[in-house]
């Protein structure tokens, strides 16, 4: 059951977006996030919507699959919407005791909910179209210039790689421990929240112990293979920016400029 969790869900289709350099995609995603916060009216949202839909179409990832990513966040989106409806001052359209819905609140709530949804869909497009390794490589590469000011780019990337590498191993182990405890009468599924939390202790303790043992062995194996940090290290895969990367970035740059223009002028 735990195996169903797919973290960093990569959805390979070999599309134009998949083929882009990871750095391009990371930068574009950043520009996109900035753009979302610049947006100030629904017309600008229309533009963003067209861009996101276009990207999804080009990426060949089914729209349904993309929207599934919103499901775990529906509670947060609804809460945001409701809080905004009630908490914004303005023209009252409906009163319910001390609470009142305002025109401005309705507007603000929809606005925020949309922003959250666009944020999730847009950023998940990054992880769906980029393999975890390409992503870490891209992050390491982008952070490299910040090394002199103390950003440990290589170490961060290495940590991410190892985390990704051990997620399936540890999930498998959790499953195994769980079954072993269940075979001895442990109950993980019934009872109230407190009881359930308590029943997790015999699961987490062995899991942590084993994770530390693994870490210890892995460190030794890495040392045996001459690992000594990022200095003087080469990489097998070299990242290369191509023409399509620059044109993509230019397109997004133009979009961002238009959003800024809309914000200033209207």
């Amino acid at each position, binding site marked *: 059951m735990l195996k169903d969790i797919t973290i960093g869900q990569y959805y390979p289709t070999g599309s134009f977006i998949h083929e882009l350099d990871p750095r391009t995609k990371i930068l574009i995603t950043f520009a996109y996030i900035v753009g979302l916060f610049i947006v100030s009216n629904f017309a600008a949202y229309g533009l963003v919507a067209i861009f996101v839909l276009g990207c999804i179409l080009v990426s060949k990832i089914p729209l349904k699959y993309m929207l599934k990513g919103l499901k775990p966040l529906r509670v947060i989106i609804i809460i945001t919407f409701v809080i905004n409806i009630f908490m914004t001052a303005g023209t009252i359209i409906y009163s319910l005791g001390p609470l009142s819905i305002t025109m401005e609140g309705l507007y603000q709530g929809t606005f925020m909910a949309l922003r959250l949804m666009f944020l999730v869909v847009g950023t998940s497009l990054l992880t769906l179209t980029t393999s975890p390794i390409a992503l870490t490589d891209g992050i390491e590469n982008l952070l490299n210039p910040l090394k002199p000011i103390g950003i440990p780019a290589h170490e961060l990337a290495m940590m991410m790689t190892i985390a990704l590498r051990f997620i399936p191993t540890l999930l498998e182990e959790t499953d195994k421990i769980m079954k072993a405890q269940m075979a001895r009468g442990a109950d993980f599924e019934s009872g109230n929240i407190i009881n359930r939390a308590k029943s997790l202790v015999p699961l987490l303790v062995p899991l942590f112990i084993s994770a530390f043992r693994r870490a210890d062995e892995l460190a030794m194996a890495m040392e045996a293979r001459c690992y*000594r940090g990022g200095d003087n290290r080469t990489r*097998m895969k070299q990242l290369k920016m191509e023409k399509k990367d620059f044109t993509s970035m230019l397109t997004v740059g133009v979009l961002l400029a238009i959003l800024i223009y809309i914000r200033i002028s209207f």
Partner: protein
Amino acid sequence: MLKMIEVDKVTYDYSNNEQEVIALNDITLEVKQGEFVVIIGHNGSGKSTLAKHLNALLLPTEGDVSVKGLNTKDEDKIWEIRQIAGMVFQNPDNQIVATIVEEDIAFGPENLGIKPSEIIERVSDSLKTVDMEEFRHKAPHLLSGGQKQRIAIAGVIAMRPNCIIFDEPTAMLDPSGRKEVIKTIKKLNKEEQITIIHITHFMEEAVDADRVIVMEAGDIVLEGAPREVFSQVERLKELGLDVPQVTELAHQLIQEGIDLPHDILTVDEMVMNLCQLK
């Protein structure tokens, strides 16, 4: 022949306030280039501790270890030593670093600062040597234990070592995985002329070695060609070790008064000898 590894009067003790533990007790050992040495002994005999001394993961409390003439106590040479003497560990899961097979094999050469085009070449060569070419782009966690262990071996060969130390590489594998790994190890020794130090507690794996070393409580208690060592069935049993099944059978037959040589190691030899009996 050239000496690959020299262990000179090495003592290693990790005693603390509560108890005194001497894992290695005045051990002297030499391994020649191209040799296939098997070290056996049960848990706590010090065999893994010895293995970790051979590529400077541990440093001796007393005495010296040198690899191709380089002393492991020399901190400047430590990376050179680890490149010459690679190591494969017991748990295949805990020595694979990357999420894709080829990336993991590239890990060692990347650490050595080899240029990208050559790394790609080395990765292909290594995968070919361990017969895992079709798994190049797979995720390691989807492979079987034997396959993972072969990937770990490929990762070590990609660093072009002269010597590989195997620390119980088959202990966590099923019989078929064990067979794959042993086949690979033998191939490395025969075809790539890599010096092999293989630590195990499966006696059958020691039969084809050039030399067998038996360890007990931090000491080397028996040493010699597999035939010499395994013919001492009583002594090995005293140490709590098994002998290969066929040797055991021969031993029992001899005790029953059947005229057989003491040093039968394989089923084929047994058949040959039994057929010649009158």
